[in-house]
């Protein structure tokens, strides 16, 4: 343990804490610290986020980093040795420049639009109604309907509900999930 109460915990400990790998004492001490330290809470959140991407990273193809670095060096050397051409303005370039600008603007707008919205979805299916934000399951309300009794769904713009005869209480019960 590289910190004491009142001081910030070390990076190793924060990472271990985020992964649930820290021992009970260390965990207790970090939790106490996190209550009053927004900076460390942020660090824990970042570690957690990072770890959640591990599966995606694991799908990357194998890369020979040394070979890649060599090739980059060789290209840089070649470019440095090559004589620079004299740049002359030609009218035909105006159209090309406009085209490049248009493509770049299109790429930027598309990228912005794709990055901004998060999918909020409400699902009604056989066993549950569920609220999801992005790929994360936020809340699932399960129905335990009596056998031989149907479940009725109701869908509106902001909510999905399931109505059923509860197996435990024998009462009509309606589960709703609402979009934020």
């Amino acid at each position: 343990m590289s910190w004491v109460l009142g001081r910030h915990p070390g990076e190793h400990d924060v990472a271990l804490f985020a992964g649930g790998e820290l021992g009970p004492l260390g965990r207790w001490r970090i939790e106490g610290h996190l209550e009053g330290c927004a900076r460390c809470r942020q660090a824990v959140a970042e570690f957690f986020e990072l770890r959640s991407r591990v599966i995606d990273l694991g799908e990357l193809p194998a890369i020979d980093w040394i070979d890649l670095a060599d090739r980059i060096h060789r290209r840089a050397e070649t470019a440095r040795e090559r004589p620079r051409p004299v740049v002359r303005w030609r009218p035909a370039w105006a159209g090309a420049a406009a085209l490049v600008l248009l493509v770049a603007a299109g790429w930027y707008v598309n990228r912005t639009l794709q990055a901004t919205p998060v999918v909020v979805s409400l699902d009604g299916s056989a066993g549950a109604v569920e609220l999801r934000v992005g790929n994360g399951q936020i809340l699932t309300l399960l129905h335990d309907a009596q056998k031989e009794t149907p479940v009725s769904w109701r869908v509106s713009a902001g909510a999905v509900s399931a109505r059923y005869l509860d197996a435990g209480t024998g009462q009509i019960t309606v589960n709703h999930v609402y979009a934020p």
Partner: protein
Amino acid sequence: MFTRRSWIGLWLGAAAALAQPAEPLDPSLAIRFQLPPDAPVAVVGKDLGDSRIQARGGALVLDLRATVTLRNNSTHNIRGLTLVVLAQEMAPGGKGSVAAPSLNVAPGGSFPVRVNLRLLRPLPVPVGPLVEVGLDGVLFADFGFFGPNRLESRRTLTAWEMEARRDRQHLKAVLEADGPEALRQQLLASLKRQSDRPRLDVQVSRGARALSAAVNALIGHNVAFAFLKIPDSPIEPLSGGAVVNGAEASSPRIEVANRSHRPIRYFEVGWVVRDSAGREFLAGTLPAAAGLDLRPGRIASTLQDRSYKFIRPQEAPPSIAGLTGFVSQVEFADGGLWIPSRKALEHHSSLFRLLPVSPEEQRLAELYRTQGLQALIKELGKF
């Protein structure tokens, strides 16, 4: 290049992915029931049954199977109740609720409500309970209401109660006019209607899917609503449509006129989807936008920035070929509510076949199925 911190994170992620489920934690610490001190109901029992809470890898999985017993501390019969379910770290505004309609709980009486939910949240465990259950509203037999009503429980519970009275009245009328055997036939028809009702799973989305609505506008096509005329409806649908692409309908919009003499603050239009094979399914309802103030004789439109994707369990996705709308609920500015009459619904036989029975009709049909005709007649006599 990865930093030292990144490598630690990656190592931790790999360790978490390989981790085995941990020892179960105490689920009773994960849920808190919190009712207002002046609430007409009080929690008199809690049973968490086989609820489980476990740390798996880097996340906490809560499987809650809770039965809460509530006592009616008021002086009126309770007809319905809504509990709001809030999970920590939930997206702002996102929530769930569990409602119990078709109750008839006398003062001093108790009744159970089940809250079954699953929640997955990343570690570390937050301070305090993961789930809070509170009260959104209680409806009494005299249509009195108690509660913060943040989920519009007053309107929902009132509509259910009006449907309950409508359908009990219908069954009583059948009994009085044509006798017990006619009542039995009604209940058998109701049970058949419930079991035969075609069903679609649906996913409602906004955000990135709403963005795809723009794409749908290019590759999809506009389908106009056909409207069913419901007698005595305070509003008249004038026009409407949605952009349809295969099994997905985006941005449905409807224009209506207030044909009543009272200002309207809310309405719902039900919609039915017809696929290319001619089969029809109830798709759901399109509610009016919040803050509506529709004066008599005026026109308003509702546009939903949503996409509705329909899925037929174990079958190919339906290809939407037609849309039909009908007015299913209207709330006046003075709080009065309108729902279609039983006669009006039965008049449109194809619609009647698609609509779910009311919660009360479902309860009464189940009573008949499990306890017989005499138990049903006795139950009808209580109201």
